[in-house]
């Protein structure tokens, strides 16, 4: 069960049970719709950007534990970050889930997001863990709804 307990770490289960920033944001400047057709996950993201910085962020929707916890932890991680910093973090987060596993995640300064390093062992679940991030990316770009397909 080690791979499993790596995947479903307590932090993930906790954020699944009680997701943070699980609400619509009034006066959001950006919003986005994310959809993972494989498992039916759906989320709406609300972002309030001021002076190039993410001041407030929230989400609503349905999803598996991984996608919900990922959205929850993402909102905590990017709040207060500049758009460029958020994008940069997304890039590194993506590498964390898909890249080689030689550098310990903590060493790369992921903070709590490091709990998702276990997802690497479950390639079909990578899309769940990145759905919120793809949605953030497209919301900020003002583009079309994000889909993991």
């Amino acid at each position, binding site marked *: 069960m080690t791979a*499993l*307990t790596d995947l*479903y770490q307590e932090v993930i289960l906790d954020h699944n049970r009680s997701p943070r920033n699980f609400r619509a944001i009034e006066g959001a400047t950006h919003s986005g719709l994310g959809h993972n057709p494989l*498992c039916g996950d*759906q989320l709406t993201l609300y972002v309030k950007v001021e002076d190039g910085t993410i001041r407030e962020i929230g989400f609503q929707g349905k*999803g598996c534990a991984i996608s919900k916890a990922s959205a929850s932890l993402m909102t905590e991680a990017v709040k207060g970050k500049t758009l460029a910093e958020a994008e940069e973090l997304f890039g590194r987060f993506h590498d964390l889930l898909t890249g080689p596993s030689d550098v310990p995640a903590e060493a790369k300064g992921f903070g709590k997001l490091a709990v998702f390093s276990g997802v690497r062992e479950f390639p079909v*679940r990578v899309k769940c863990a990145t759905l919120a991030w793809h949605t953030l990316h497209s919301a900020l770009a003002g583009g079309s709804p994000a889909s993991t397909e």
Partner: protein
Amino acid sequence: MIDITLTPATFDVETVRADFPILSRKVRGRPLVYLDSANTTQKPEAVIRASDRFYRETNANIHRSTYRLSEEATTAYEGAREKVRRFLNAASTREVVFTRGTTEAINLLASSFGQAYVKAGDEVLITGMEHHSNIVPWQLLCERAGARLRVLPIDDRGELVLEELDALLTDRTRILGVVHVSNALGTVNPVKEIVARAHAKGVPVLVDAAQSLPHLGVDVADLGCDFLAFSGHKVYGPTGIGVLWGKEEWLEKLPPYQGGGDMIASVSFEKTTYAELPARLEAGTGNLAGGVALGTALDYVNAIGLARIAAHERALLAHATARLSEVPGLRIVGTAREKAGVVSFVLDDVHPHDVGTILDQEGICIRTGHHCAQPVMARYDLPATARASFGLYNTLEEVDALVDGLRKVREVFGA
């Protein structure tokens, strides 16, 4: 090969399992527990060999050449068509059109039938229980033709609301498409009655038999339907081969679906005349080895006997329904009075995708998601379900393994 201990009512599952090479493999160090036969079935040795033997000994294109090898290939492929005819209790092999599967069969029908019979203002009737493959082709047709797609609803149990059928069969209804056994809910629909009521209004009926033919069998003469579709890979045969069956008087009237080789009588740049049925609806070289191996798969099913298979799967369904109901927080979705070996369920707040991942660690394969039936999911306001589905090789112990696996899921989630 099929040396099974047969009694009038049962067969020896362990002997049958030995016919399926994949069932002896391990997944993550554990015995494979394959509970996803509604998705695709595993293949018995006889089917694998039939395909292999075709390529080793008989391979040549059919209907086209004068040499012996081609004649043998033609005989094998046409022999399989005859096996399909017998399996369906159809009147003639002219009614058996090989396709890539159920999806292509329905697309063929929607396209050809639609071209000939569905005009602006007409209606096509389907049900709320259809697989996407019996929705989207009709939707495309309706958009093209300016016709209207209408839907017979389902109730909370997962049964069709038959009281509304007669009202939905209007004088504009050109065809009715109905699934025999729902892949998402397991419901067995009273197709014979539905056909009778549609015919009373002069409406022809297509039956999607993808899930019924392998587990209950179908008799087109008895059902009375006009068209029927199924997939080889769901009846222990290969992927890439399936059948559209249609009454000859209907198929005769259908314009060609695709153009090309084999479907013509003669071609000139001025005018092409078409071949006889079924070739007219089968353009190009088909899946020859697949067709032959499908014939073998039907032989295999016949050797065990559909009545025994159905009884075995009924026992699995009853056991699964009872045992799953013991799992705290588990709710079965689809509680129709008549069900085949499919159990869809949800577990508390645990998303089906997480259920699937944890069961996979135990070597247990189930399907999670919308089962290509998003309108069904929407009907029950669920994003997805987990689904176990059975084949003739499943055992009661495998059902127990599923139940144990679900207890692990609850542990992981601290439920």
